[in-house]
C-alpha cells in the first residue's frame, strides 16, 4: 500500500507520521492527540510539512482545522509547507489557503522565519548533523548534543583557532555550502586516535582531516536530505583559508543553519549556508 510521510516540526524536535493514503478515523485521532500534546509542551513556531502527501485525507484536514484554531487562540505561529496540489486544492476549496502562511519547502519557511522571528528554530537539519557527527567522531570524544540545537543566523560567530572546510551544495531548490569549523585540539585528538600516532593541531594531517570529516558528515547529510526529495549534489570539500573563513563569518547576505557541538577536547560547528 502506498504511504505518505507527514512531518511535524517544532522547537528542537520533529515528528514523522507515516500514514496510509486512506487515513482511518482512529489513526487521524491518534495523530491529532499527538500533535495537540506537542502543542502543550511547546514552542511558538509550528511547521507542518506535507512533502510526500499525494492525497490530502479529509480527517487530517479536520485535525488541522481544529489545531489551527487552537494555534490562533494561543497565538502560536502556524505555517504549512511542501503542500501537494491536492492539499492546496483542499485548503483553497475550504477558504483556508488565504488565512495561512504557505511556503514551497521548509528552507523557504526557514528563510522567512529568520526575518520575521529571530528566535531559535529548527527544521530537522540539526538531527541530521547530530546523527552524522555522533557517527563520525571517535567514541573517546564526549560530544555534548545538549546545547547543539541548530539555529538560523546571519553570518557565523567569530571562531579563532578553528580549521574550516567547505563543500559546495547544488540543487534546483537548495544551493549554498556545507561548512565545518573544528577547533585545533579537537582535530589533534581525533586524528591522533584515527592514525594511531601523535598528530599536532597545525599538522597537514589535521588540516586535511577536517575536509575528510566534512566529507563524512555532509556525505551522510546529503543522503538524508536527498531521501527527502531535494536531489542535491555536493562538491569535493575544500579547506578554507583563514581570510575566506572570516569573510564567511561576517557575510550577512546569506542565511546559515548553525549547529554547535561541544566536546571534552574542543568544539565543532556544522553549518549550512543558503
Amino acid at each position: 500500500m502506498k504511504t505518505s510521510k507527514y512531518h511535524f516540526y517544532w522547537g528542537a524536535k520533529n515528528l514523522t507520521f507515516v500514514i496510509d493514503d486512506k487515513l482511518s478515523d482512529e489513526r487521524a485521532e491518534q495523530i491529532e492527540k499527538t500533535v495537540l500534546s506537542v502543542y502543550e509542551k511547546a514552542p511558538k513556531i509550528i511547521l507542518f510539512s506535507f512533502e510526500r502527501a499525494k492525497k490530502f485525507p479529509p480527517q487530517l484536514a479536520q485535525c488541522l482545522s481544529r489545531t489551527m484554531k487552537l494555534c490562533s487562540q494561543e497565538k502560536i505561529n502556524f505555517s504549512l509547507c511542501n503542500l501537494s496540489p491536492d492539499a492546496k486544492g483542499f485548503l483553497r476549496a475550504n477558504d483556508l489557503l488565504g488565512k495561512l502562511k504557505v511556503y514551497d519547502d521548509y528552507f523557504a519557511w526557514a528563510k522567512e522565519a529568520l526575518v520575521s522571528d529571530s528566535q531559535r528554530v529548527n527544521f530537522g537539519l540539526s538531527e541530521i548533523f547530530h546523527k552524522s557527527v555522533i557517527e563520525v567522531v571517535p567514541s573517546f570524544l564526549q560530544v555534548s548534543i545538549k546545547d547543539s540545537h541548530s539555529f538560523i543566523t546571519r553570518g557565523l560567530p567569530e571562531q579563532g583557532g578553528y580549521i574550516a572546510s567547505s563543500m559546495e551544495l547544488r540543487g534546483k531548490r537548495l544551493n549554498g555550502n556545507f561548512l565545518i569549523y573544528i577547533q585545533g585540539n579537537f582535530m589533534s585528538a581525533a586524528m591522533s586516535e584515527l592514525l594511531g600516532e601523535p598528530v599536532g593541531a597545525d599538522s597537514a594531517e589535521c588540516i586535511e582531516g577536517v575536509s575528510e570529516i566534512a566529507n563524512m558528515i555532509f556525505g551522510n547529510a546529503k543522503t538524508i536530505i536527498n531521501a527527502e526529495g531535494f536531489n542535491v549534489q555536493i562538491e569535493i570539500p575544500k579547506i578554507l583559508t583563514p581570510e575566506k573563513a572570516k569573510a564567511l563569518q561576517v557575510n550577512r547576505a546569506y542565511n546559515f543553519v548553525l549547529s554547535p557541538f561541544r566536546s571534552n577536547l574542543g568544539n565543532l560547528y556544522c553549518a549550512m549556508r543558503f
Partner: protein
Amino acid sequence: MIKTDLNILIVDDMLTMRKIVSKCLKEIGLSALTEAKNGKEAFDLVKGTSPKFDLVISDWNMPEMTGIELLKSLRADADFAKMPFLLVTAESEQHQILEAAKAGVDAYITKPFTAETLKVKLEEVAEKYTQLKQ
C-alpha cells in the same frame, strides 16, 4: 580467512584517509600496501605493476578520475576485469549503490568504518575470489 600477503592498492585523494585505511589494514595483518592519489594514478599503477595487485580499495569522490570511473575502466579491460574491488564512500544513496553494483563492485563500505568492518568486507570479497583465501 583472508591471506595476509595480499598486494593491495589503496586509492584516495586524501593523505589522511589513505593513512587511516592503511592503519586498519595493518591492524588486520595486511602490510603489502601501495597508495595512489586518484583513479588515473591508480589505473596507471594497476597497468604497470607486475605481479598484479590482488585487491583495490578505492574512494568514490576524487579529482581527475573518480573511484567508479576507475572501476568501470578496470572492468572494461580484459586483463583486469576480474580484479577484486572495494569502494569506500561517505555517501550511500540507493542510486549510487546500484550504480556501483552495476559497474561490478565487490563490496561497498560507508565512511566512517572500523578495522573490524573492513575485515568483514574483505572476508566477504574473499568468499568470491578463492585466490584471496588462505
